[in-house]
Structures are given as structure tokens and as C-alpha cells.
């Protein structure tokens, strides 16, 4: 069978990303042909600024080398510009006569820099800033000439100006608006930016309108003209128009020499860079009669008005919006690939954008609608001397925009909230002060990635320094947190440095970085569905096994991966307790061996001691087991029990049998321990019997599996010796009853638990704590601790479901008790799956 033919016009980042996504989904569906007008394979256009600034070379920014095209059997036509599409015959024609037939055509023609229609625009030395050729022209000019003028004080213009200044030119930025980057910044932040850039040697002319660009051979007549003439245009200067530079020897280069403004002033210029915006390149599409309106008009599936023709990237107008930053374009690419692969489920619904200026040493961030209007509130922090400015724009309890200057460490956090449409009412009072736990623990308290030296460690788990991460982002062309995790391992273990890594991404790739939208983030690479969608389907469609889920929800891998299988196993057991079958092969080894694997492949064994109370008999048995099995290390844990370390896997069943104590589940995503103080039975300050309360909670809840581990503590008075303030559920006895706190955390993310409710009786503690935990079990994403879950849904929501709605609380508690009824102690002889522990030999 012959394959369908896919032709792509344009060889840039959005288009090639579409092909990459398509190859991931359906590598063999199409014969692919690519036309690129430039002589280079796909390169990272975002990194042109560092190239211009001399921080990187062209070879560093190639994203897909020629080998990649070969490996994927893509026919690549470089240096060939497609000039015609015959939609009836479904053939495209390039300027050199090359033709290619298509079944599906993908237009990714990008955009062109907008060139001001002023006299002199065609002089030598007047260029746009778009591609490698422009960059090379600037580098060449910088070596030879002195005066550069950049027209346009937007993102691109400033990056160009910075690069040229670093290459030794005297650079003036001309901007028509009253302040720089008016689309990304407000007046205050723009002024601070201007001051910093001036300190770097750049000059600015604001509210200046270019009248004409003056060249060598145009100098004499212009000098003869009077100043202040207003209504003049290029047409009355015959030798500037049409664009035919004199070919004669003497005047071989009619090069720019100066630039003149509407107010009559003039400054010298040997190089003029126009960075006044981009225009979607729709010429080809329009010539083929495809509907365009500012860009090539596409629907939510990235299809143009011709059903066999798709379009992605800067050439596209989607819902009336054209995008120039790469992050939204990658989202488009993903959707387009999904449809080209005939999966037909993805939709592109537009993007919120963020901006970060890639000028070394300047921290600036903006996102969303930061201007505000009469429907919005603003929170502003402005420290002129300290060089810090932050503005947050809030509408209807949601963050809709943010501008930050000087301190941008919380930029990606704000951006995430803007994209997620998160309700910020509860955190409004400290919203401005950011996410204090950005670099949570283990990074020397560092929370501002930009200020860190290259040698400083970012990821304390895997020993990855800032320099390594930045280098990988630049050289390997990484755009997402996932990419960085894969290539550098940073943030791939405990995740506490995620905020720092996101910052590094944001400051290295600038506007290209978009944090993943949590609300629509797929579970893993095996599916497009989110955790919530999967859970909903498991529940609503009564899916009771992992194969059934994967089949019904069309998993794109035969049997999932090490990330989704444990989640699915938990979800299915939680949704259908006592009906769904556990699948041990979908559990992490610790939950399969019911012990905690150590670095040398041995295991640790922690028997349960309810409430941290033990007996001489139990301690004697533990001591005997240690002797009998030569257990090398015995350690008292933080959770008030005893850890036997270094047990061989094949010995585990025998160790359990000899201990004759219940499993402590210290290896599981389950209830770990209930820590207690001695309480009123012994303590002279105790007002409640916290030890008994802890024992009763632990007896009620042990064997409870959960999205992640669960830790509980009970203190007998407000002195809180059991440290209830940093537990998933913390109970504190007071004279008149018990206070219940939830969603604390003592680990990576040290977070103090929040007050949920005060109750009078022992039974109420069991009911409220149980109901809260069941809610967490039913709604949290797998591997979210209670702190993450409550942060996501808000404490108010928890209170509504657990405290205010008594019927719901009782129902939740009842569901928990029902689910726990059948749970068995995995250490009991009858429940041990012997084969797991037997070794074969030859």
C-alpha cells in the first residue's frame, strides 16, 4: 500500500515540532517532504539573540540536523521557496521548478519582519531581525561599523540592541511609544528596564518617528532640503525608489549613513535594524485562495478552510489571534500532529502568553493582562532604590496578569496560576510575596536562580549545577521541565528544585518557556487524558482492571509505563474497593515486596507499633530476629518505631513470621505511622489521652492505601510534642476537646498544617480525620501528598465537604471503613505471595 503524502512548506520550529509530534504518534503514516527557503536545517530561532551577543555559535542552535531528516525518511528541500500551490491537483511548486504532490499539506511559513515603508528602507545596511542571515549581517556590520540604530523597543529590538552593544557598537534604540516593550510592560517597569539598559551603554530615543533613512548617495540632495517638512514621502526622491542601488563602481554600496526623524533631528547610522513587529507570511496561502485574515485562518484543529491543508506557527490566525512566541506554537504543533495522525481528539484553544527578556543580568517577566481595567484590582510593590517592581492584576478572585522587574523568581508560579485560572482569594494576602518554597529544601535557601553562580548546585538529589542545566537547555534545545529532567536529571527525584529549574528555563529560553497547564496535563506519555479524566472514567464506566482502562481509554502503549501503571492500580482499587483486583506487577517494588528497597538491593523491615507503644515481648522478639538473620543495622525511626535494615529479600517472609507483628507499611503509599506524645496518662501538662487517641486512629486506619504516604500525629496538649503541625493529619488535645489540622508536611516542602475544625469527642476525631483522608484518597492525583492536594482545591473546599456537610462527612467516612474492611496484613503468612521471594539458580 502506498503511504499518504505529507508536504510541509516552511522548515522552522513550529513546523518541525509538528513533524516530531506526528512521528511520535504515527511514524509510518506519511511520506514526508519539507521545503525550506533557508539553507539551514531547523534551528532554534529563539537563540539567535545569544548568537548575536556572541554567547553561542550557529552550530549550537541547530535543533534537527540533516541526519534527523534522513533517519525519519523526510525528503528535505533546502534553499527552495515554494511559490505556488495547485489545490486542485494537490501539487506545490518551488521557485526552482521542484514539485511535490500532497495528500495533506502543512503550511508553516512563519512570518516576516515588518519593514517600515519609509524612504531608504532598501539601502544596504537596513535589515530586519529574523533569521541566521540577518544575524550574520549584524555580526559582520558590528565588525566594521560604529553606529547602530535599532528601530523598535520591543522584546526583539532590545535583544538585538543588547547583542550589537556587546559586539562593540554604539547602539541607539528608537521607539515610537512613550515607553519600552509597551505590550509586555507598564510604565514603571519599563522605566526601570530602560535605566538598567542605559547603564549597559544603550541609548534610547522614545516617541520618535522615523521619517527616512539616509544613504551615502542620497546625502547631498537631503542636505539641500529644508527641515521640518512634513508631508514628504519616498516617492519624491527618485534615486531611492525604485529599489535599484547603483551598480557603478564608485557608488557600489549605497549604504545607510543616518536616520532622520519626523521632528527633523537626525542621528548617524551605519546599521539599521528594524524590529517593529512581524507580519504573518500569508502570501503563498493567499495566492492559493486560502482564507486569510491577518494570518492563515485555522480552526481549533489547525485546519485551514481547505480541509487537506493545515497550518501552524506564526503564519496562523487562530480565533483572530496570531502568536509570535514559541510556546503557543508548540501547543499548536501538538494539536496539528494529533489530527494529521488521524487521532482527532486534540483541540487548540488559544494560549496565555508570558514574556521574559533574554538580556543577561536583567530580570523581567510579564504575563497575561497586566494593564487592568475598571473591573480589576491591582496589588503593587515598588521599591525604586532596591530595583524591584511587581504588579499583580486580579479580576473576580483570579490572577489575570503579572509584571515583575528585578525579582522574577515567582514568575512561573504566577503564570501557572493565570493559566490555571486558580482562585486566589485565600492566598491574596500573601500572593505578592510569592511562593516562599520555590527552592524548597536543600538549596542553601537559594530562591533566585538568576543570581546563582553557574557552579552552584540546583538539584541536591542528583548533584546538578546551574551551569550544567543552562548548558543543556541551550545546546540540546530543551523547552520543558520534562526535557530538562530527562537530560540533566535535575528536579527528577524529589522535585524540590522544580521552581529553580523552571526559572532557569524561563531565563534561558525567554518567552518560549511555558509551565505545563496543570488542569490539562496528561497523566503520562501513554495517554492524552488527565488524572481527573481517567479517574472519572474509571468510576463512571465501572472500569475494574488496568487492561480494561487502557483499552477503553485508548492508551497509546500496550501496557502503560512505570509512571501510569501504579497510578491506575491505585485509582481502580480506590474507585471499586473489594471488586477490583490488585495488580502487584503494577506496583512499585516496595509495595510488591512489602519492604523498602535500599541502595544495595536489600530491604528494610519496620513492624507496626500502634501509637509508638511497644512491649518487652515485642522488643525481645525483634532482638532475636536481628540475631537470627544477622541484620546489620537497627535504627529507631522518626515515626516512633524500629527499623531493621539490610534484610535479604528471600529472608523477608521468615523475618515477618518470626517477628509476628503487623506490617508497618513503611514502604507503601499508605498510612505510615501515628506519632504520639505520652499525654494525660503520664504527662503533668497533658489534658487529653493522646497515646490512646493515636493508637485508636492507627488501628482504624492502618492498611489504608492512599495517593502517597500519610503521616498522622496526636499531641495531648498545645505544647504539641508529637509535632502535629507538620503532619497530613495533626491532632492536638486541648482542655475542651481536640483540634484537627490537615495538610501539613515536614519533608521537601515544609508546610505548617492548617486548622480544619475543633471537635469534642474521640469518635468525632476518628470521623473527621477519616472523612478528610477519604476525600484525599478519592480526589488527589497519585503521588500528591495532602499538602499538594489541599493547595490545589483550597481549604475552604475541604471545610465545605468535611466540616459543613455532615451527611457528606459521614458518607466519606463510611466509604473509607468499607474499603478498609477487606484489607489484609501482607505480612501474615497466608497473604504472602511466596514466588515473589524465591530465587532460581543454575
Amino acid at each position, binding site marked *: 500500500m502506498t503511504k499518504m503524502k505529507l508536504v510541509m512548506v516552511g522548515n522552522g520550529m513550529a513546523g518541525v515540532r509538528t513533524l516530531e509530534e506526528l512521528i511520535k504518534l504515527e511514524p509510518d503514516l506519511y511520506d514526508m517532504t519539507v521545503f525550506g527557503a533557508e539553507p539551514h536545517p531547523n534551528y532554534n530561532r529563539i537563540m539567535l539573540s545569544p548568537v548575536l551577543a556572541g554567547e553561542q555559535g550557529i552550530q549550537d542552535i541547530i535543533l534537527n540536523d540533516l541526519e534527523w531528516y534522513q533517519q525519519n525518511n523526510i525528503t528535505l528541500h533546502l534553499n527552495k521557496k515554494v511559490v505556488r500551490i495547485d489545490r486542485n491537483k494537490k501539487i506545490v511548486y518551488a521557485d526552482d521548478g521542484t514539485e511535490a504532490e500532497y495528500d495533506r499539506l502543512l503550511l508553516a511559513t512563519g512570518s516576516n519582519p515588518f519593514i517600515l515603508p519609509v524612504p531608504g528602507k532598501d539601502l544596504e545596511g537596513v535589515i530586519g531581525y529574523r533569521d541566521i542571515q540577518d544575524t550574520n549581517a549584524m555580526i559582520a556590520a558590528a565588525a566594521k561599523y560604529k553606529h547602530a540604530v535599532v528601530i523598535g523597543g520591543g522584546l526583539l529590538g532590545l535583544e538585538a540592541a543588547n547583542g550589537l552593544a556587546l559586539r562593540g557598537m554604539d547602539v541607539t534604540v528608537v521607539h515610537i511609544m512613550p515607553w519600552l516593550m509597551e505590550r509586555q510592560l507598564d510604565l514603571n517597569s519599563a522605566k526601570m528596564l530602560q535605566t538598567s539598559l542605559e547603564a549597559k551603554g544603550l541609548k534610547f530615543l522614545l516617541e520618535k518617528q522615523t521619517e527616512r533613512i539616509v544613504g551615502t548617495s542620497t546625502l547631498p540632495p537631503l542636505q539641500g532640503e529644508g527641515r521640518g517638512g512634513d508631508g514628504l514621502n519616498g516617492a519624491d526622491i527618485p534615486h531611492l525608489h525604485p529599489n535599484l542601488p547603483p551598480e557603478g563602481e564608485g557608488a557600489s554600496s549605497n549604504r545607510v549613513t543616518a536616520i532622520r526623524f519626523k521632528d527633523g533631528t537626525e542621528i548617524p547610522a551605519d546599521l539599521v535594524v528594524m524590529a517593529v513587529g512581524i507580519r504573518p507570511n500569508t502570501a503563498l496561502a493567499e495566492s492559493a485562495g486560502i482564507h486569510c485574515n491577518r494570518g492563515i485562518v485555522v480552526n481549533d484543529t489547525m485546519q485551514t478552510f481547505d480541509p487537506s491543508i493545515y497550518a501552524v506557527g506564526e503564519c496562523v490566525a487562530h480565533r483572530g489571534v496570531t502568536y509570535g512566541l514559541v510556546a503557543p506554537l508548540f501547543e499548536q504543533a501538538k494539536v496539528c500532529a494529533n489530527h494529521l495522525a488521524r487521532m482527532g481528539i486534540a483541540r487548540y484553544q488559544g494560549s496565555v502568553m508570558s514574556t521574559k527578556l533574554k538580556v543577561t543580568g536583567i530580570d523581567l517577566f510579564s504575563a497575561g493582562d497586566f494593564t487592568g481595567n475598571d473591573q480589576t484590582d491591582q496589588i503593587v510593590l515598588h521599591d525604586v532604590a532596591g530595583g524591584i517592581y511587581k504588579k499583580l492584576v486580579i479580576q473576580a478572585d483570579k490572577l489575570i496578569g503579572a509584571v515583575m522587574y528585578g525579582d522574577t523568581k515567582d514568575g512561573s508560579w504566577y503564570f501557572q496560576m493565570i493559566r490555571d485560572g486558580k482562585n486566589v482569594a485565600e492566598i491574596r494576602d500573601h500572593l505578592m510575596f510569592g511562593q516562599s518554597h520555590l527552592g524548597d529544601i536543600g538549596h542553601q535557601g537559594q530562591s533566585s536562580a538568576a543570581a546563582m553562580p553557574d557552579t552552584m548546585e540546583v538539584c541536591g538529589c542528583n548533584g546538578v549545577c546551574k551551569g550544567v542545566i543552562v548548558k543543556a537547555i541551550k545546546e540540546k534545545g530543551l523547552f520543558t521541565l520534562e526535557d530538562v529532567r530527562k*537530560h540533566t536529571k535535575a528536579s527528577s*527525584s524529589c522535585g524540590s528544585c522544580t521552581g529553580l529549574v523552571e526559572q532557569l528555563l524561563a531565563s534561558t529560553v525567554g518567552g518560549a518557556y511555558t509551565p505545563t497547564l496543570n488542569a490539562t496535563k496528561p497523566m503520562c506519555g501513554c495517554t492524552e487524558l488527565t488524572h481527573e479524566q481517567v479517574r472519572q472514567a474509571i468510576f463512571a464506566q465501572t472500569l475494574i482492571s488496568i487492561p480494561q482502562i487502557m483499552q477503553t481509554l485508548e492508551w497509546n502503549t*500496550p*501496557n502503560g509505563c*512505570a509512571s501510569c501503571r501504579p497510578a491506575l492500580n491505585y485509582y481502580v482499587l480506590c474507585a471499586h474497593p473489594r471488586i477490583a483486583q490488585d495488580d*502487584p*506487577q503494577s506496583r512499585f517494588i516496595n509495595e510488591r*515486596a512489602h519492604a523498602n*528497597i535500599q541502595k544495595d538491593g536489600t530491604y528494610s523491615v519496620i513492624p507496626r507499633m500502634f501509637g509508638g507503644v511497644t512491649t518487652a515481648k515485642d522488643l525481645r522478639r525483634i532482638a532475636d530476629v536481628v540475631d537470627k538473620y544477622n541484620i546489620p543495622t537497627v535504627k529507631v525511626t522518626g515515626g516512633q518505631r524500629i527499623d531493621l535494615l539490610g534484610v535479604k529479600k528471600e529472608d523477608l517472609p521468615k523475618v515477618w513470621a518470626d517477628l509476628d507483628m503487623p506490617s508497618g507499611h513503611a514502604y507503601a503509599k499508605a498510612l505510615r505511622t501515628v506519632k504520639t506524645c505520652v499525654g494525660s496518662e503520664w504527662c503533668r501538662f497533658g489534658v487529653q489521652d493522646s497515646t490512646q487517641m493515636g493508637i485508636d486512629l492507627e488501628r482504624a486506619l492502618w492498611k489504608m492505601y492512599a495517593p502517597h504516604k500519610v503521616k498522622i500525629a496526636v499531641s495531648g496538649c498545645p505544647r504539641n510534642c508529637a509535632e502535629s503541625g507538620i503532619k497530613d493529619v495533626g491532632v492536638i488535645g486541648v482542655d475542651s476537646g481536640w483540634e484537627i489540622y490537615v495538610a501539613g508536611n515536614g519533608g521537601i516542602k515544609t508546610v505548617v498544617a492548617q486548622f480544619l475544625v475543633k471537635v469534642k469527642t474521640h469518635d468525632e476525631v476518628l470521623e473527621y480525620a477519616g472523612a478528610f483522608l477519604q476525600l484525599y484518597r478519592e480526589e488527589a492525583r497519585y503521588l500528591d501528598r495532602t499538602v499538594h492536594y489541599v493547595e490545589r482545591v483550597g481549604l475552604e473546599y475541604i471545610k465545605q465537604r468535611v466540616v459543613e456537610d455532615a451527611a457528606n462527612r459521614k458518607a466519606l467516612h463510611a466509604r473509607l471503613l468499607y474499603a478498609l474492611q477487606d484489607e489484609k496484613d501482607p505480612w501474615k503468612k497466608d497473604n504472602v505471595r511466596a514466588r515473589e521471594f524465591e530465587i532460581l539458580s*543454575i
Partner: protein
Amino acid sequence: MNTWHKVSTVDEIPPLGARVVTTAQGDIALFRTADNEIFALRDKCPHKGGPLSQGIVFGKKVACPLHNWNISLEDGNAVAPDVGCARAYPVKIEEGVVYLGMVEMAEVN
């Protein structure tokens, strides 16, 4: 030359699971995929020596239980961008019996 050693039956290895075989050359992990293919690798992750036999098996890969490196069951190579290789051993199945092919120690050295 490979010597074939009878080590197990297919049924004794759980689908999407593994068994460990102790040998004079160290532990070898026997994996069984969903399609009942059997693969054998040295039971030592090229990263930090984790016991691959204890990992989660999916497709024709296993995720190391220590740091989640993904290792291809077919050739023992780490999945990119990680780099490393766990030695792969030949396996044959005859009438449900699994044979492991091993080069004699003398030849290894």
C-alpha cells in the same frame, strides 16, 4: 560458545514481571513481557547497580527500582538520553521451558 541452562518455565515468571537466577557470573534477571516473550539481563542497572529484576516491566522495557532508569529488555541499553548497558543474555523457550544461554567463565576471561 553458549551453553544452554534450563532455568525456569514461562509460567513461573509472572507476566510483566521478573525472576532472579543466581549464577556463578552473578545474578541474572529473567523478564516476561505481556506477549510472553522472555528476556535475560544482568541484574544490575548500568546507573548505580540497582536490581533490575525488581523494576516495573512495560512494553519491552524495565524501569530500575532505584532511580527509574529505563532499560531496554532486548539489548540491555538504557533508553536515551541516559547512557549505559546491562549485559543481555540469550534465551530460548522450548515447550514452555526457559533456557538461558551462557558463555562459560573461561571464555569470558
